[in-house]
């Protein structure tokens, strides 16, 4: 039935209805995680199969009543009892579920987002046959007693920028699919979609002034001694400065750095491309390339400059700035 309501949003009057429906749902209680599902957020309607069985039940009832057939009536009423119980059980399967958080790591446009929803159940009973649905994608899962789980829902992306997901539904047809109970909720924040990197970008712009001109082959590990620092888990043994460690009575490791090379300046205005989107894509590819080569870069967007830096955080800041470009 929620399938019917889901389908409503296609036509224009449907969209109005949809907006009204969403507003109504939102007025009834919290709709963004973290939230606990209570009776105000749980909706329940018969499924198509439920209606079919109802029809069958009606036929059985009329026939048995007419022929004054008590065993037939008993059969009918057993089905009725099954129906009323399965309504309760469907509701119970959702009641008290906690949707703790939603979120996703940013992806490049065109890649599917793995939208993660964290759901917890405090009940001392299993919750079988749950279904998390967004649009036409759905994920079926079961929750054991007192468990937390993370459900990944793939969501396709097309454009860069902030992606606001519409309504998600957590639903169940447990125990025999006569009724569908569902809860609607909205993700608490939008998801960042980075621009899609150009497939064959031109080489990195090495700048006009080739002052240092020394293009050394870069060793990913670096080979130039930079400094000593406290040993951290994961440092390979050959990096440990044994002698220095002995002197300081604590483990020290050598920190190695690449020979410092020239800074790159990546300017949106000077990137090749026919239109803005294409330039942004090229720039994205360059950013990734620079990061791979561990070079320091500055990103210029109109009047704004970010950097220079070479870290992952810098890369993310730059990608975010590009994604948010108007």
């Amino acid at each position, binding site marked *: 039935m929620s399938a019917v309501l889901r389908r409503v949003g296609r036509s224009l009057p449907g969209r109005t209805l949809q907006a009204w429906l969403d507003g109504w749902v939102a007025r009834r209680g919290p709709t963004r995680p973290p939230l606990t599902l209570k009776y105000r957020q749980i909706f329940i309607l018969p499924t198509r199969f439920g209606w*079919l069985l109802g029809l069958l039940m009606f036929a059985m009832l*009329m026939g048995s009543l*007419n022929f004054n057939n008590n065993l037939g009536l008993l*059969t009918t009423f057993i089905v*009725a009892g099954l129906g009323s119980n399965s309504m309760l059980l469907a509701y119970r399967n959702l009641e008290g579920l906690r949707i703790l958080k939603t979120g996703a790591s940013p992806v490049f446009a065109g890649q599917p987002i793995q939208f993660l929803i964290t759901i917890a159940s405090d009940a001392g009973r299993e919750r079988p046959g749950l279904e998390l649905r967004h649009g036409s994608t759905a994920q079926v899962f079961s929750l054991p007693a007192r468990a937390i789980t993370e459900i990944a829902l793939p969501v396709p992306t097309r454009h860069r920028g902030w992606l606001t997901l519409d309504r998600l539904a957590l639903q169940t047809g447990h125990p*025999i699919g006569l009724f569908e109970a569902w809860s609607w909720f909205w993700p608490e924040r939008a998801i960042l979609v980075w621009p899609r990197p150009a497939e064959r970008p031109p080489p990195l712009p090495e700048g006009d002034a080739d002052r240092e001109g020394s293009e050394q082959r870069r060793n990913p590990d670096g080979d130039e001694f930079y400094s000593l620092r406290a040993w951290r888990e994961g440092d390979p043994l050959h990096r440990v400065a044994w002698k220095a460690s002995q002197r300081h009575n604590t483990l020290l490791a050598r920190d190695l750095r690449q020979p410092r090379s020239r800074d790159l300046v990546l300017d949106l205005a000077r990137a090749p491309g026919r239109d803005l989107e294409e330039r942004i894509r090229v720039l994205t590819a360059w950013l990734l390339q620079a990061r791979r080569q561990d070079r320091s870069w500055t990103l210029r967007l109109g009047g704004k400059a970010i950097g220079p830096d070479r870290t992952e955080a810098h890369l993310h800041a730059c990608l975010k700035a590009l994604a948010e470009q108007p």
Partner: protein
Amino acid sequence: MKQLPPFSAVAWTIAAFVISALPHLAAMPPWLAAGILGACAWRLAAARYRWGPPPRLLRIVLTGVALVFVLVAFGGLWGRRTATVLLCVMLGAKMMEMFAVRDLRLVASVSFFLIATQFLFSERLIYLVYLVSGSLVATIALTRIQTVHGGQWTARGGSELPAIRQAAVLLMLAAPVALTLFVLFPRLAQPLWGLPDQVMDGRTGLSEDMSPGSISNLFLDDSPAFRVEFDGPPPPPGERYWRGPVLWNFDGTTWTRPFFGDAPSRQFVAEGPRSLSYQVQLEPHERRWLFVLDYPVRGPDQALITVDHQMLNRHPVTTLTRYDVVSNPDFTDMPELSSGAQAVALRLPEDRNPRTRALAQELRERHPDDRALINAVLGWFREEAFYYTLSAAPLGRHGADEFLFDLRSGYCEYYASAFAILMRAAGIPTRIVTGYQGGFWQAASEYLLVRQSDAHAWTEVWLEGDGWTRVDPTAAVSPARIEQGSRSVIDGPRHLFDLNWVENLRNQYDRIQHLWNRWVLGFDHDRQRSFLRGLGLPDLTTDRIALLMLLVLGLVMAPLSYALLRQPRGRAASEVERAWQLMLRRLKRRGLTRQASETPLEFARRVRNARPQEGERIVELALMYCRIHYGEVQDDARPFIEQARAFRPARA
């Protein structure tokens, strides 16, 4: 092509279908049943070996052929049997395309419908087993289908036990609602549409006419015909004549009912000092007769008392029917015989039974008085070598002659027919009454069980001054038949299991069946009213009963919903956890509350700072707790649990 459903869901669905269709399959032509079972077997094999559905064209052709077969087999005769057979055949055909959740569910839920339709044919106690097992398997099937729903066809685990348990719990939870509805759902006083006329599957009841030697199989049928509860003591065995069709016409071989058989009685039967009031539960027999003792004073509203004191229901009796009757045995039926009736009651084919006619003439010359003549014939039956036996030879053209002079052995029909022919030939108006005689008195439950084997035929002669008077020639030959019942006259077992203890068991079973009939099957409009009156409620109209039903339903559902929806109390999962929580609660009472942000160790250290005297102990316990939970080597939890429980913080 979607993935195929798993074997388990398909197997349960087919099991539900086969169980619910079993009685229907038994009632249809064997080759049709074999076809349906074959389709089920094919589907099972398909699920086992992961075959896909057959081509669409083949499916359509096979379904069409099956439908044609049904039409041929049933000759286009539309009735309940045809409808259910058609339904079974359609479901059998559905097996070929039962590959989606939707189809599986359809078949499983129609199983409930099939179960309900079977009760249109029979509501015997034994079908309770059928109802319960059929519903259970159908529910298991639905549960199993649900667990594989959602595009994920991979069934969880190999064990079927969780699904069976879940379905059983579901059914048990459905019971309170079902019982409430059953008791309180308003019943119809009148049917909404017409009742069909043919439901019995080849079972025989008393037939509409009588030709000696044709229905002896009825005497071997021990199934109950009806049960009677008397308001007072039961009448003595010799008076238990249950009146059925009254036969006037004789064509030489067969006795039939006269054209005026359905005409209502114009004689008023008054109640007398010996009148009896009793309730009859009549098993369906597809005819309109309601069996009564002589002479019915009044019956149920929908019944009619005919001119020869039969009671006729408005519709054929196709379900278990309960009716109240008052009978008065002291009544003179037709003190004056009209000439028309006399002509019918004397008519005999001219060219039959010459020896009997001669005997009648001879008797008439010797005994001018009717009563003396009758006594003479009965005395002749008694003294000559006449035998009562069920293995009698069929009679030919001159049936009465053969019987009276050559065979001299037969059962009630032979005697009644021959006696009636003899009487008519002697000029005494005679008619034959068929029905039942006797019955088994279930002393413990105080009801009279009348079986099909108690079927009987006797005669009524019209005598000046007494009107129609019952004369039972069988009683003259075999008084035991009348006094001790039909079983007493049979020498030797009738079949392999005709043993005494089997007979006792049957009687015991019938007592349960009687209770079942009385409280479950016979729970109709009237009984529902009287049940509610018995509870002290006033006479309720239908809509009031419906209101009451909703009220009680609410009362029943409330605790059920509470039990289902109650969240189990926040009990900590393990004993360790409970001990730890106990310790925290005790500390809290001393004003030391763990913040949500604090780890156990952080909390313990804070406590140590605040209360150094016992802080060390708390830190020690917190460390044990952490080791149990997070330690690489699993510590023994016992010491911690004991120490944590024993821990009592001192008053600050």
